[in-house]
């Protein structure tokens, strides 16, 4: 959490993927054309969100088994950061949809369930806000988190594949990796994912460290 090497790596990967995301050549596909470059930005947002929510549920489980309050703080700050990335993912998805599907929100299965998954985690924050006592808050929200995470996974990955969808990879559409994510894109896409995941994790650690300091100064008063 306090080392710098992975933060610099994340920054370098994001800068690299952004520059070459715009300049490198991409396959020319119908409907998408140049907007396929959004793959380097829209998808890493979601991957970062999933990694952060995984971190969160991990710390929620750890809190329930140990009672150590730092796990609870890690759980909530990773949800905070994950929600930011999820919102960015939905907005970038809507912008992309406006240009490829015709409307920003077409009540597509994937779009709807992504919004519902985010609402699940908004509810986590609302739940925490409703409980004043620290330990009770931590315990109840940890239990909720353990339910919310698999629900989010099902909403985002399972259900859209079972019904009609415009989104690549769902509803009978081939995923991007099946035939058009060629080497030119993979060499930028994978570093972009890793870079943004590292940046997301970094932002979460900054929020957590701030919380710890706030707590320390509150205890010293």
């Amino acid at each position, binding site marked *: 959490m306090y080392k710098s090497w992975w933060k610099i790596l994340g920054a370098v990967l*994001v*800068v690299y993927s952004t520059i070459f995301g715009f*300049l490198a050549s991409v396959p020319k596909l119908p409907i998408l*054309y140049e907007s396929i470059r959004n793959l380097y930005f829209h998808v890493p947002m979601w991957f970062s969100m999933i990694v952060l929510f995984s971190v969160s549920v991990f710390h929620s489980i750890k809190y329930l088994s140990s009672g150590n309050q730092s796990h609870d703080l890690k759980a909530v700050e990773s949800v905070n950061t994950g929600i930011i990335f999820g919102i960015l993912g939905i907005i970038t998805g809507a912008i992309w949809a406006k240009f490829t599907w015709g409307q920003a929100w077409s009540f597509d299965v994937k779009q709807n369930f992504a919004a519902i998954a985010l609402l699940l985690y908004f509810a986590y924050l609302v739940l925490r806000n409703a409980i004043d006592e620290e330990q009770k808050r931590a315990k109840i929200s940890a239990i909720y988190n353990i339910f919310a995470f698999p629900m989010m996974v099902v909403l985002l990955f399972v259900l859209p594949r079972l019904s009609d969808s415009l989104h690549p990879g769902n509803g009978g559409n081939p995923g991007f990796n099946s035939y058009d994510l060629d080497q030119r894109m993979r060499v930028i896409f994978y570093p972009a994912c890793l870079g943004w995941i590292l*940046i997301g994790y970094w932002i979460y650690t900054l929020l957590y460290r701030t919380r710890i*300091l706030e707590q320390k100064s509150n205890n010293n008063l």
Partner: protein
Amino acid sequence: MKTMITTVFLVMVTLQLFAQNGASTVTDSFYASGKIYVVVACVMVILLGLLIFLFTVDRRLKKLEKKSVTKN
């Protein structure tokens, strides 16, 4: 004959439909005239600015943490 004319007419109507203008002259000339570099430069300014901000926040936090450790 009537169906032929109707079909030709309907096909001409569909030609007006565009969900987006992907393969247009705009996107092609962006590359040709080098204007894509303007886009890259703008996005890099924003991105580097935000990353530098993250680094400064990290450094400030490190300083505070060091101070609080020595206090205790």
